[in-house]
């Protein structure tokens, strides 16, 4: 698996981004809550989340199942709206944006790896990536992106011809390919063995370091937290603890 995210274009891009006067915090939330349903059946997925995510950091979100991690990712990723509270992306208030503005925001800034891969079954791996590069302003080629996750040779296969882990890697290639400002990964390594898993984490780290992208990773594997700048412990719809790592492990050294 080659990790040639350090290609010429990537570097130019990173330089541009660094030079464009970065906002100190990519995300700021205040009292963010999310309630699904109403009445007796209401589920409080988020119960007042106050969060600051500094730009350019790699952040890991840990927490038990059902604690609201995906919900938080969806809201700050512009896929969903909170019930109350505010969300800022840099200095723009996401929670006040129209649907069209949110669409613009997703298109221009966000890369998403969904918990359930969400590949288009009728498109090949390459075409699934193209779906995103097609509308991005400065994307890599689909081949480059698939090469990063070690699937260069499977570009013309349909999702039904790929294993679960391979599908997950296509999903990662798709999210990385647009060279996003922020990259959200909902359990990106859940279905992967240790070698492939470490390689994927390496890709995420490269995106973070070389493109300057803010990367948010949701995971159940506590060991992954060791490579993050910042670890957010989540429980029952609220932040229990935020830990900043003084020393970070390289992906290769993470225990699986």
């Amino acid at each position, binding site marked *: 698996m080659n990790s040639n995210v350090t290609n010429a274009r990537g570097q130019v891009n990173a330089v541009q981004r660094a030079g464009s006067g970065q906002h100190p915090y990519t995300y700021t939330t205040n009292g963010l809550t999310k309630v699904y349903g109403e009445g007796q*059946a209401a589920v409080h997925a988020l119960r007042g989340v106050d969060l600051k995510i500094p730009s350019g950091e790699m952040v890991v979100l840990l927490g038990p199942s059902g604690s609201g991690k995906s919900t938080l990712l*969806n809201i700050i*990723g512009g*896929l*969903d*709206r909170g019930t109350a509270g505010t969300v800022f992306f840099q200095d723009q208030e996401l929670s006040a944006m129209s*649907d*069209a503005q949110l*669409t*613009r*925001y*997703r*298109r*221009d800034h*966000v890369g*998403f790896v*969904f918990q*359930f*891969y*969400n*590949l*288009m*079954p*009728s*498109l090949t791996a390459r*075409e*699934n990536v*193209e*779906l*995103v590069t*097609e*509308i991005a302003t400065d994307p890599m080629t689909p081949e480059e992106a698939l090469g990063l996750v070690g699937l260069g040779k499977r570009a013309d296969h349909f*999702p*039904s011809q790929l294993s679960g882990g391979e599908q997950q890697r296509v999903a990662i290639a798709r999210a990385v390919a647009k060279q996003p400002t922020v990259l959200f990964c909902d359990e990106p390594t859940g279905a992967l063995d240790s070698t492939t898993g470490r390689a994927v984490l390496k890709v995420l780290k490269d995106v973070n370091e070389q493109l300057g992208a803010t990367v948010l990773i949701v995971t159940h594997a506590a060991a992954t937290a060791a490579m993050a700048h910042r670890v957010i412990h989540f429980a029952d719809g609220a932040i229990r603890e935020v830990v900043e790592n003084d020393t970070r492990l390289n992906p290769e050294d993470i225990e699986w």
Partner: protein
Amino acid sequence: MSPLNRKLLRDLWRIKGQAIAIGAVIAVGVLLLVMQSGLVTSLDETRRAYYERYRLADVFAPVNRAPAQRIADLAAIPGVAAAEGRVSGSALIDIPGLDLPLQARAVSLPDFGKPRLNDIYLNEGRRLESDHPDEILLLKSFAKAHGLQSGDSLSATMNGARRELRIVGLAQSPEFLYTAAPGELISDDSRFGVIWMSRSALAAAYDMEGAFNEALLSLERNARLPAVLDTADRILDPCGALGAYGLEDQFSNSFITEEIDGLRATNASVPPIFLGVAAFLLYIVISRMVQSEREEIGLVKAFGYTNVEVGAHYLKLVLTIAAGGAAAGCLLGIVSGRALVDIYLLYYKFPFLVFQLDPASFVTGFLVSVSSASVGGVLVLRRVFALTPATAMSPPVPPDYSRSGRIGQALNTVLDQPSRMVLRRLTRQPGRMAGAVIGIALGMALSVAMIGIMSGFDRMIELSFNVIDRSDVTVSFNEAMSDKTVYELQSIPGVIEVEPVRMVSVILRHGLKSHRGAINGLLALPRLNRAVDSDLKSIYLREGGIILAQSLANKLGVKPGDTLTVEVREGRRPVLSIPVVGVTTTLLGAPAFMQLDALNRALGEPNRVSAAYLRIDSAESAAIYRILKDMPAVAGVSLKSDARAALQKQMDTGAGATRFIMAAIAAVITFGIVYNAARIAYAERARDLASLRVIGFTNGEAAFVLLGELAVVTLFALPMGALLGYYLSFAIAIGFSTDLYQIPASVSLESYAIAAIAVLIAAITSGWLVKRDMYRLELVSALKTRE
């Protein structure tokens, strides 16, 4: 190619079976529209061209006897482009081996050259030569009906004298497109002939040397018809004018017009109903197809595609199917319209064909299909767009079973697991199920109504010939005779019953509306040919009033109590004022009835009859016909069995023939709807069904879950379709009715049963097709992709 477009193509390929089924339904809807309107425009255009090329007159002015030089006066009327006089008279043709003589019209052609007006189209043989007075041309359809050819001889009685004639050619003319014996409505090639003879020969036969008894006029483009008619009548009055009339009142043309108008009326109501049903199906199917793409829509939106981009993608999919179906419909419509026009031309006896399409039908077909598909797509897209991408991407919220409560509990104990799954799906998605039920019900309704129409045609014939007219034979006289003739007929052995009738040709006027037809003077309470009310009981004909057929009353806009102006077109041609005293149910023609004595008194001609209805002993018929044939007063004898057969033939080959095509199309639509309902249910459930199989359900049990749903939907649809069909049959019956005949809506139990069986067969076949696909499904690949 952009990935979305590639997805479009692959999706289309994946759902090709269903896309074709949807396309087929919309295609037959459009086909019907295009074909039918092409038929009408072609007939119209062919008729126009035929009239023009063979210079059919615009005005016909019959007269007793006018000197030849009068024609110059007629030609000088302002607005008249050309005038020609000719001789025309009635004749009887004797065909060896036939019991009865056949009625015919003899018409003159100029001795030299072609006629300026009312030219003929020569099918075979040659034109007349003036130095052979026994040469004739014979109407081709009549000749064919009797196996006559050029070279044969023919014996005919003209003006009382029997003559041997030689057929030198067979011809046809726009003047005789539709022919029927005098006093009859239904065309019968074998029972009415036309003979063309040279002017001098015919003049000699009818004592018209140096004279004419019919003037033909053609008009300039901006001529005023009523003024020309008035002037012509004034000029011919000293010679015994019988009343000039325009082309629209000419016998043949008025029938052709009625047939074409009838076809047009059918087209205005029936194909739109079919297309409407197809459009509804398209709407339902498309909205469910888009609905099932909800998660993919959410995903593409999550990547930052705008609503417009996503919407355009799905509309492309939807419009490809809709426009593809419409285009196929247009093409098939042209092809089948073309084939059908040929058949119609045979029926209408046009010598050539001008095939012309109606561009409006293409536009309508496209607009209806494209808009119903777009509306179906757009409404669902709007609902999905209203969701956040996160919600759209997640599978629909698991249903709330907390409400099923005790009923649910009770059911659990009664039903097995697969039955409960069927039941839950039905109750959980009532909107979707209602759409499927309505769709299938509409298909059933179409079938019910079309089967009902089939029996409506039979019922029309049955009512007309067994209930309203109970005679066997109609004998018409050369002129109005003394009523003693009736007693003469009565004394013929084998004649059981005789009933006199006086037919008077009239123009009925009410306000600005008018109708050219006849009044039938009948006995006060006739037994053979009756006026009946809506309960099919005889109406007693009171003195001093007129009873109109319902269709005639509608045409004139009158109701009982109103007064009609009646212009009599024969004898002394009085103008009468007669109150309408009732309306009668007739399904054939648009007759008006008066009491015989009252009619005669109003005309100032007491005790006259012009025809008689006879009921006879069929064993004696040959002898009776022989006697009638030799009675000098008898102009013609027509048998009801002939008329009935002729009408049956006319409805099976003329405008009524479209009912067979429409019934076939109704069947295609019904099948298409049911099949689509099954396909869609399968498409929506393929994953669930695969999961069932994986956790150990047998193929049969999984199929039950799928087909049980289809079965329940179909069973709900049957009664609803029966009810809708009942109402639809009225609309379709009106569409099929023409001025010549009215088709009653008659939906019998049988119609419901046949339609229900058709729907069930469609359901079973569709179920079997879907089940076959399901058994072939690869479990692994169905489960593997989680969009």
